[in-house]
């Protein structure tokens, strides 16, 4: 896949009526697990196809016309711009409608919204990625971004887990990173099956065993909230400070631009001030409702 240099591009901002979606077209659908699908898409408007930029960690509001809008992160890397990707777990009304779509379908897209993973802060550091289930979606945008600029970063550890072998998503990525000699890829499942020969164990436990060094390192964590809550203490035990831990939070974000009110944690709006936060920031939140 072509790697694009986007450093010279002007950053894209939604202008005009921010609630009007752009039309995007589904180009490919990948069945990741029985409940998760990845959609490859492009903008219908050619100018936007060229002009649209985003950064790893940002999200969009995707709409199935007639059903509604929902937020998903852009799961592809800004360094790979043949198309964009987002991954969807089938859980509610909009996600069920998305899972019924086929290639060629048109959707609405607003964005990109939110902050992004702080690439400047990650520069020259050892990176420890800890992901669970569909939580790999925002991480893989950053992982490919980092791999495409491999010389700018040091060691890369990726610890990824799911409930069962069938629930492991993005297997093509796991394979690619497993073969990459510059990456330490660790895959685990909560429960194995007859054919599973890999690791078995919950992500935080496996992380504790793999025990990546906290020296000049940053851990980037994303997964179900329960996994995130159990992962932070393990990282602290390994010597990571709250400033060295990053995560991206999920909330019901309707407008995506800090107005509709529902994604706040205290005075912080996840859509506008996040979704990427350090654990130090989270600990400073007024409310523990994350």
């Amino acid at each position, binding site marked *: 896949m072509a790697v694009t240099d986007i450093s010279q591009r002007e950053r894209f901002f939604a202008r005009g009526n921010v*609630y009007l979606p752009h039309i995007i077209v589904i180009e490919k659908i990948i069945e990741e697990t029985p409940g998760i699908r990845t959609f490859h898409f492009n903008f219908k408007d050619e100018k936007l196809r060229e002009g649209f930029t985003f950064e790893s960690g940002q999200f969009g509001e995707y*709409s199935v016309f*007639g059903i509604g809008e929902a937020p998903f992160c852009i799961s592809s890397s800004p360094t790979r711009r043949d198309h964009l990707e987002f991954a969807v777990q089938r859980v509610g009304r909009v*996600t069920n409608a998305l899972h019924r779509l086929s290639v060629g379908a048109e959707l609405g897209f607003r964005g990109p919204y939110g902050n992004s993973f702080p690439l400047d802060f990650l520069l020259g550091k050892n990176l420890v990625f800890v992901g669970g289930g569909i939580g790999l979606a925002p991480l893989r945008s950053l992982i490919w971004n980092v791999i495409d600029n491999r010389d700018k970063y040091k060691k890369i550890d990726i610890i990824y887990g799911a409930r069962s072998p069938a629930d492991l998503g993005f297997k093509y990525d796991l394979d690619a990173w497993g073969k990459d000699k510059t990456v330490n890829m660790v895959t685990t499942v909560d429960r194995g099956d007859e054919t599973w020969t890999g690791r078995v164990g919950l992500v935080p436990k496996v992380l504790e065993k793999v025990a990546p060094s906290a020296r000049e390192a940053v851990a980037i964590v994303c997964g179900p*909230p329960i996994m995130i809550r159990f992962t932070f203490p393990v990282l602290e035990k390994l010597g990571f400070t709250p400033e060295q831990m990053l995560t991206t939070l999920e909330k019901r974000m*309707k407008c995506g631009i800090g*107005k509709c*009110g529902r994604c706040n944690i205290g*005075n912080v709006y996840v859509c506008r001030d996040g979704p990427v936060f350090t654990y130090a920031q989270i600990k400073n939140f*007024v409310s523990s409702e994350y």
Partner: protein
Amino acid sequence: MAGKKIDKKDIAKLLSQWSQELAVYVPSIESGVATMAKWDGKDTSFLDWYRNTVIPTKASFFPSAEEMFRFQKDNKGYHIELPPSNERKQLIFGVRPCDARALAILDMTFKEAYEDPYYLPKRSSAVLVGLGCTNPYDSCFCTSLGISPAQSTDVDLMLTDIGDEFLIEEITDKGKELIAKATEVKKASKEEEASAKEVKEAAYQKVTRKIDTEGIGDRLLACFDDQDYWERIAAKCISCGICTLLCPTCYCFDINDELVRQQGTRFRSWDSCAFSLYTKMPMENPRAEKWRRVRQKVCHKFKFYPMNFGVIACTGCGRCIRLCPVNWDITQTLESVPVKV
């Protein structure tokens, strides 16, 4: 600045003149509910019954349900178009100082970072004619929020009832222009200006309910994790949402699609942090319990909004007290915050 005045019996003429260029809204009863509605061209009986509307003035700029755009599919795919905007500029007559201040507070949210393309154009083109409140409800507590019931600079013109006439103050250039064109407006005497001042002072004294806003945010924060306290406060709440929907500073909304015979509409509508579905995600809900939602409501107004914008998101209009079906009372809540600071 020399004061102006107008005879109460000339108000209809004044409104008629303004109606030539502007869509004039006045306090009205619609389906039994007091709200700002299009003036019918003659009736000024609201001058007798009007205390404040049930529906706050925010609804003129941020309606309870609003079409955002339409979409339609043909063989070339989806097409999006904005709804036709043939609405004339609004003049809202009789805005109370509490509701006018609420608009200034809402402006902050709708202007911040991304400009809201629905609220702001309506708001900036509108003219607000304030009408001093001389008969506040006993649920009103605006004076504790730095608002005077009969005085406002959040409007374009401010009117004060001085008996058979209204004294008129021109607050903005927009207001001045309106008065310059109004043929029924006369010059007010020094005595009339003095009597308006007295009316304002008397109105101020009539607001007897008070809250102590001094350090309220920090006091709330100090008991933020006191679940027992919040459960007590929330005990009688039935999560009906009326205190937020009809709050002049509440702005939460939902976005939804409607599809009727291939013609789609995306609209936004008022939503409320009092509803458990408001924050519900498929896997979890950060505010599933009622006490968390009540805490959010109180702390958002008195701590989080001040943290972000420097002002308390409450104007003491008292609607949340008057309209609550179970007599939940924000002033009692704030009074009962345990002192831990």
